[in-house]
């Protein structure tokens, strides 16, 4: 075959793969690693998004560190198991999650998956704009700018016409998730070393609120969009079975970095534990930056606000991308950052359209900001089991995956994760519903 047999996006991908092959054959290990990292770190740091960081901080403010510090580490370990499967399926098959579900299980399941994802992504994207809006508000910048920034970022990062340039820009932005670590370090030990903050392993209070925060914390680390995104991005990047070792490194390093940054947000929130942290949720619009400014100081508040802007911005880029991949894959349309607006029109429209709709919604006066942010994660948790089950079936499918299929141990761990996520999501959904209809009291 000559290069004329390939589409424009395939030619670009082949060029990227040739660069990887050259780095591998010439023994340039660090350069090879640099070329291959991306989808895993973006999925993990992208999921340390606005609602997740607000959720972690809310948790720290209400319950201290005792239960949730180890719980966040556990959820990221769960996430690493799921995302490794996602990367592996994408690299071995060269197909996105939506395409594979459609081809392997039929159009009904393909469309269900895409519709579920589009709906949860829209809700989550609203929450991302809310996070940017909260961060901007701390610096006296209006909500219109938050909406404009988010949509502009999506358009500008796509306009390079290369997956590689898109990935590097977003990766550069994602490193600023480290602002939450800096904020935690600046907060200092004296705010969180009090026994009441550090040793609250079995928190009291409302069971619904605790379940909301547990489900929300799971939804902050294992989500349907991450599965769609990492598998499709791995395929778009041109990863192959030869790249699995680096893909795993990318995924596990991303999980470790995201867990540390997430714990940073929890620690910052815990500084409010003995200063009315339980009522911080009620601050909604001004939220955490204002509370932190009052209790810890202006520096930490500014870092937290900047962190929220970064977290929201990166998540808007990755979640919009997963929407673009899912919608395009389900109708069999071209879906690549290597494609132009003309050749991948639906991918571009879905990507930008999702961000534009969400950005418009946050401009509506009186929108319940914090409630949307927390419930976006819960909704993702409740809808996650179906996507996870399909991922496990695909990753265990020897006909599809050959010798790279799941072993029994990986499948067993993955099934345990599905059971745990389902249990937590169901517990919150049922408990909060019964309270909403006044059958039980909180």
């Amino acid at each position: 075959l000559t290069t004329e047999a390939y589409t424009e996006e395939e030619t670009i991908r082949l060029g990227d793969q040739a660069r990887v092959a050259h780095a591998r054959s010439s023994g340039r290990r660090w350069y090879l690693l640099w070329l291959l990292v991306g989808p895993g770190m973006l999925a993990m740091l992208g999921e340390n998004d606005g609602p997740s960081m607000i959720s972690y901080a809310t948790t720290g403010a209400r319950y201290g560190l005792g239960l949730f510090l180890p719980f966040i580490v556990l959820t990221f370990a769960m996430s690493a198991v799921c995302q490794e499967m996602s990367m592996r399926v994408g690299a071995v098959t060269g197909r996105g999650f939506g395409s594979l579900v459609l081809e392997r299980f039929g159009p009904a399941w393909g469309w269900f998956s895409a519709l579920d994802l589009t709906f949860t992504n829209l809700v989550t994207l609203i929450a991302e704009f809310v996070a940017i809006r909260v961060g901007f508000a701390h610096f006296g910048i209006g909500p219109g700018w938050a909406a404009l920034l988010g949509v502009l970022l999506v358009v500008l990062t796509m306009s390079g016409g290369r997956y590689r340039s898109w990935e590097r820009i977003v990766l550069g932005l994602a490193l600023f998730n480290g602002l939450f670590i800096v904020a935690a370090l600046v907060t200092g030990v004296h705010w969180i070393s009090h026994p009441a903050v550090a040793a609250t392993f079995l928190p009291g209070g409302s069971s619904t609120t605790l379940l909301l925060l547990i489900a929300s914390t799971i939804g902050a680390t294992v989500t349907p969009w991450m599965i769609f995104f990492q598998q499709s991005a791995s395929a778009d990047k041109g990863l192959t079975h030869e790249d699995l070792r680096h893909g795993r490194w990318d995924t596990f390093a991303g999980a470790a970095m995201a867990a540390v940054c997430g714990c940073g947000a929890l620690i910052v929130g815990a500084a409010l534990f003995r200063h009315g942290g339980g009522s911080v949720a009620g601050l909604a619009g001004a939220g955490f930056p204002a509370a932190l400014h009052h209790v810890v100081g202006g520096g930490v508040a500014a870092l937290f606000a900047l962190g929220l802007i970064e977290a929201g911005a990166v998540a808007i880029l990755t979640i919009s991308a997963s929407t673009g991949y899912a919608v395009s894959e389900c109708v069999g349309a071209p879906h690549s950052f290597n494609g132009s607006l003309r050749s991948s029109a639906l991918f571009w429209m879905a990507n930008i359209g999702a961000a534009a709709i969400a950005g418009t919604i946050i401009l509506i006066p009186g929108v319940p900001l914090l409630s949307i942010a927390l419930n976006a994660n819960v909704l993702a948790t409740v809808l996650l089991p179906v996507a996870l089950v399909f991922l496990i079936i695909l990753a265990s499918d020897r006909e599809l995956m050959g010798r790279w299929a799941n072993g029994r141990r990986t499948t067993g761990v993955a099934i345990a994760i599905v059971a745990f996520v389902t249990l937590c999501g169901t517990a919150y959904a049922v408990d909060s519903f019964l309270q909403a209809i006044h059958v039980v009291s909180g």
Partner: protein
Amino acid sequence: MIGRASLSRRARIGLWVLRAFTLVMSALVIYTFVAGLH
């Protein structure tokens, strides 16, 4: 194009049950969220 997976009848029923279950749970979460707004 990749061929269809051959799922047993029990597996297909299990997937539909899980699908219905998650939809019901989602409806509960959305109801609770809307109820909380009032």
